[in-house]
């Protein structure tokens, strides 16, 4: 049986333990907060250093870019891509099979005597431009030259070798055709065409309005879309001319007031008003703006007012 003092002692112990547990928990929370503060301080201190490193890297790469290095790298990648696209597994196998023969050919071709001959031939072809044309008589006369006779002899020997090799290859090809693909080098296979999912028919794009006369004659004061390049070059007379060009006749006081309001708003805020903003600054309903400037009033007014096209960020 538990005496009351026994229970009381146990409760005291529990209370002490709870107190310790609370202290430990608070300590952990403080530790976590301290750790977070340390981490934040570390990041705060590191950020300017990282920014400085980033600046240095940007400068380095800007220099490289100015010297064309990345473009060369990209071109190299494109070449590698094309080679990879144009080469099939069979091609690589064929290359592997023939690599010894290729190396032998390269060795033969790069022998000093052969190279010297090729160089000479190069010179000759350059000089041959200056040779006079020769007809049948000229040929007969030339064949009496001992050097021409030597050259003809070499040509005949080369032709004989090429002809012989060609006949051997023909015989091998015929053997493959007869006996199956186990004999001879594999043939190149082309990749199957890419499957493209069916797309819904595209509707024809809306017809653009015919360009106004200013843009058509290539007036340098206007960009390709008919907007004044230098807003400071605007005058009332120019506005009327543009309006006339856009077939806005008659160009009334009502038009002028809207145009003036648009220009003032642009000067004040640094951006051209769209139709909603125009409605707000002129206290005209949007329908009234359409009545004055049919079809895209925001853009039309901007053109006449010599301010930039109302645009988005992209």
């Amino acid at each position, binding site marked *: 049986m538990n005496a009351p003092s026994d229970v009381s002692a146990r409760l005291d112990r529990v209370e002490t333990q709870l107190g310790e547990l609370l202290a430990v928990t608070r300590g952990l929370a403080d530790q976590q907060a301290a750790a977070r503060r340390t981490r*934040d301080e570390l990041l705060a201190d590191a950020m300017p250093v990282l920014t400085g490193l980033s600046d240095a890297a940007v400068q380095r*790469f*800007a220099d490289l*870019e100015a010297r064309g290095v990345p473009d060369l790298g990209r071109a190299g990648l494109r070449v590698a891509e094309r080679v990879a696209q144009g080469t099939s597994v069979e091609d690589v196998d064929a290359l592997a099979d023939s690599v010894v023969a290729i190396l032998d050919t390269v060795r033969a071709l790069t022998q000093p005597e052969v190279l010297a001959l090729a160089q000479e031939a190069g010179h000759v072809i350059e000089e041959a431009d200056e040779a006079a044309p020769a007809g049948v008589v000229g040929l007969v006369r030339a064949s009496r030259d001992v050097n021409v006779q030597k050259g003809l002899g070499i040509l005949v020997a080369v032709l004989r070798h090429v002809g012989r090799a060609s006949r051997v290859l023909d015989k091998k090809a015929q053997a493959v055709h007869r006996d199956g693909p186990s004999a001879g080098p594999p043939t190149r296979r082309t990749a199957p065409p890419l499957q493209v999912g069916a*797309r819904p028919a595209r509707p024809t794009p809306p017809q653009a309005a015919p360009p106004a006369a200013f843009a058509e004659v290539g007036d340098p004061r206007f960009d390709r879309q008919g907007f004044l390049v230098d807003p400071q070059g605007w005058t009332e007379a120019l506005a009327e001319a543009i309006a006339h060009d856009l077939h806005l006749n008659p160009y009334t006081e009502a038009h002028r007031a809207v145009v003036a309001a648009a220009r003032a708003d642009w000067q004040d*805020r640094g951006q051209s008003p769209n139709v909603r903003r125009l409605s*707000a600054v002129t206290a005209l309903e949007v329908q009234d703006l359409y009545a004055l400037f049919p079809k895209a009033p925001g853009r039309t007014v901007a053109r006449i007012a010599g301010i930039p*096209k109302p645009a988005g*960020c992209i």
Partner: protein
Amino acid sequence: MPRTLVLLGAGTAGTILAHRMVRLLPDWRVVVVDPDPVHLYQPGLPLLPFGVYGPGDLVRPRPQTLPPEASLIRDAVVGIEVADKQVRLAAGGTLSYDLLVIGTGSHPSFADLPGLTGPGWRRSAFDFYTLEGATALRGALDRFEGGRLVVHLHELPIKCPVAPLEMVFLAEAMLTERGLRADTTLTYVTPLDAAFTKPAAAARLGRMLADRGVQVVTDFAAASVDGEARRLTAYDGRTLDYDLLVSTPVHRGAAGVAGSGLADDLGFVRVHPRTLQSRDCDAIFAIGDAADCPTSKAGSVAHFQSEVLADNLVRVAHGASPRPDFDGHANCFIETGHGKAILIDFNYETEPLPGRFPLPGVGPFTLLEESAVNHWGKLGFRSAYWNLLLPGLGLPMHAGMSPAGKWSAA
């Protein structure tokens, strides 16, 4: 009595600034005001409808993302009293400030496209700019068996202007994978004159949609949606019928900011585009989507702005003038499906150009060009967002756009 810096909004910008400013202005009180109990990783939203992420992957409890030294007030802003230097809160209280940063973001304004949230809303017509919308769209795409799928950009500005294009690309990839491509007509509708409006992008990417059989409808100023008839109607009378519509309406700034006198007609705070200081009050700055800067509304912009603004807040706190250091820099991944993405890097002066990023000639990321590396970068970014960006640790890059590695547009 310490001076008080109030940050309205704890999105990307507000959270980064909270972390930076408690360290840069240790003598100041930093107070963050945001009604949302969670922080949402918005770049994941276009991917959620395609099963790449679940809702749980994209959120963290707000207090976990903020520094313990900053005070968080879970409430919404209903007004800013500029003369009194006070912010009015929805629950009724006020909050005084010495310096105020408005980072309350931008939000899709469904009411600006009449009929969108009428019959058929989140049954045949969807958004993907909210967690609920993206989740509902996922269900619809799972059940989609073919038909007319229309991805619609209503009007700029929106945040992440490339996301509607991402939606088209990802949808095309999904339909192809599921064998539904032949049974679906995919249409991209834009109020702009093309899918790609900048010269270099148009030259490099202009054929991308046509090559995927996507019909592009341009100069479409949408007036209304008829959810019963499943029809989109433009101001010029053109109509477009759909079976499934994914629409992104024009965005507006937070309501409490819109009525403050500091904002434009859409509720975006008028600021100097390079200092981010309010044009109406020197003690007020705006950052991220909430500002009217003439660059994209994007997370990367908020990040780069936060670097500039942190320094400017320190200057102004010590009585100096802010510096016009923000160059409009944005750096955005665009998912194009089939395991690839495009990266664009641009600022106020320079349109997105082709090239390699960050190392010239080498990359590994490809600018204005699809690549698998870009896709991995986009997916990997989520970890960098939670662990490096939000805690104010930044990335090893400068806030300004670097011309290195970019090729001419030709």
